[in-house]
């Protein structure tokens, strides 16, 4: 589904991603862990189409297309979804109406008819329940005045409604108390299926107590330093990222 090959990305001339390789197949859950500043958000935002990044070399292929050629909205229509690390507050734009517009744009792209108001309301209610998001949030402005945890739940709620093929979750678990984490994790688990792939970016091993990943990758200094199964996460939990310092240090020297 997604194939990232030797991807080098810089921001204002400063290299951030320095040769990423990643293969994600339908149905898989990939966890990407790594210290602050290692490039996790850069990778996820780049995949969703944020401007301001320069791709110096490498490629990203998604469903046999050059993903980097698509506008952000086109990626969304094609099934890419990013749950933002910092969801944006948009006063004056209604949370539910935005979702309906987004969903209809996706359906239109697929050649499907617009969803009717009754079905949409049913869908939205059902998905809000999934992440235990109070219905009062549906009629509010996008993320405005939401607490940190409510914003994260709103992201998962949006994902549940839009039903993406590739969901990238950028630290959706950060800043959540244990109850909220459980709700979010269960929401994600319910959305797991053989057609859908997840990239879970996380800072904490804790999330993986609830969601069992197929692969764990460690991103540091713009490269995937190690890949493995979920035992790698446990190893990281025990030993932290300190072992990376020497590795990346020598790597920088060599470069």
């Amino acid at each position, binding site marked *: 589904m997604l194939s990232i090959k030797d991807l080098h990305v810089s921001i204002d001339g400063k290299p951030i991603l320095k040769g990423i390789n990643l293969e994600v197949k339908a149905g898989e859950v990939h966890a990407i862990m790594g210290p602050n500043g290692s490039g996790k958000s850069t990778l996820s935002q780049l995949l*969703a189409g*944020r*401007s301001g990044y320069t791709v110096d070399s490498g490629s990203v292929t998604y469903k046999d297309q050059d993903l980097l050629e698509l506008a*952000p909205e086109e990626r969304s229509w094609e099934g890419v979804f990013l749950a*933002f690390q910092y969801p944006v507050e*948009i006063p*004056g734009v209604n949370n539910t109406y935005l979702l309906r*517009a987004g969903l209809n744009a*996706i359906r239109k792209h697929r050649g499907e008819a617009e969803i009717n108001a009754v079905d949409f309301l049913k869908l939205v209610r059902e998905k809000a329940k999934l992440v235990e998001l109070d219905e009062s949030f549906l009629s509010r402005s996008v993320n405005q005045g939401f607490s940190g945890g409510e914003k994260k739940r709103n992201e998962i709620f949006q994902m549940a409604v*839009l039903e993406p093929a590739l969901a990238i979750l950028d630290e959706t678990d950060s800043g959540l108390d244990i109850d909220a984490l459980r709700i979010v994790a269960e929401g994600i688990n319910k959305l797991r299926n053989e057609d859908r792939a997840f990239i879970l970016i996380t800072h904490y091993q804790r999330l993986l107590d609830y969601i069992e990943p197929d692969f764990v990758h460690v991103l540091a200094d713009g490269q995937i330093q190690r890949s493995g199964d979920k035992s790698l996460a446990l190893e990281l939990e025990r030993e932290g990222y300190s072992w990376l310092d020497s590795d990346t240090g020598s790597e920088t020297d060599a470069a």
Partner: protein
Amino acid sequence: MSAALNQTSDWHPQLATALDTLPGNNIGWLAQRRDKALNQFLELGFPTRKTEAWKYVATHSIAQITPVLSQNAIIDSAQIAQWRLDGCDELVFVDGIYHQSLSSVTDNAGLEIKNLAELLKNSPDETKALLSQLDHKAHDAFDALNQALLRDGAVITIADDALIERPLHCLFVSTNTSKAITPINNWIFAGKNSQCSIVETYIGDDESNSLTSARTNIKLAANSELNHYRCQRESKQAYHLAELQVELARDSRYNAYPIALGGAIARVNVQITLAGQNAECTVNGLYLTKDKQVSDHHIKMHHAVPHCNSNQLFKGVMDGASRAIFNGLILVDKDAQKTQADLSNRNLLLSKLADINTKPELEIYADDVKCSHGATIGQLDEKSIFYLQSRGISREQAEHLLTYAFINDVVNRIKLASLRQKIASLIIGQLPDSEFISELV
């Protein structure tokens, strides 16, 4: 430009003739009052770019107006149907002249609604006394011109203790296409403990190109409350020069909503005086310009006594090669201790050629006050655009949506539902992707 700048004296002969035709010019005090103002007009001369308050407005184009009065035009009720407001009493003025047949005023206990021309005709002496309650000295030539051409307008008196539930809508329609002058003078007296909502709407036919010179004087007695909406949507060829003067007695509450959408050059000059303790004033303003429009707001919030609050928000969106000017002064007198005053001016520039000059000012002579002021000029937030795109909204639609959301923040503060909806659909209708936006807000 090579065209010589007009002098106010160039207008003298025609204005003198116009004055003679004004109703009530046989009444001594009135004729004197108009003459005095005419002389002021001649003495003051048109403001130029050297005049600080007019620094950014090219008045020479206004001076191209023909110094004659707009005449009584006949219009059909259907022509203004779309501008009527549900659930309101309505006074309709066409080119500055009251039209009873288009108006509808229910018997509203506690609300006395008159038009100036009729008052001057029927009870000149009482009118003189009434007007003298709220007099002022013209501060520039255009204001003097307005005074000299005193002709008609709404005179509204709210009785003490009257709680007026039905809002009053004063609808001013411009139809004149011969560059004439339309003077309008309104007075609003809010009695002690009274409450009322009044809407002034200034609209124009697409073809109208006159100069509307509109002054509204408002006096709030102790503990009264007035919601005052002022919506201006004149044609793109029209000039609109507005004066708003408000005086608040103790414990009174004045909520103003100046909304400026139309006009080639539209200027609103507001002077609010908090003259009694514990008076409170909120202003939620909005100006939208595009093409070559110029929109100018000058606001003076004068805290003259202690323990008053004022809170002002003005938002502007400028597109095309348009320009807006915002000048907001908070003046706090030496005795006005414990003043709380805020002023915020936020602007969105949608095009490279659009321009805003904003200058919020504080002039504070008291030492125990809480005042803040600030202005921002910005473009649309890239993070928000990207967020919307990532949810499937095209970039263009996201931009239009965010523009409306920025504006909507002010529109949503309009308490009168029928007006809020009207303004919202009017503004959305002017934006591209209007159908899409209206589904999302």
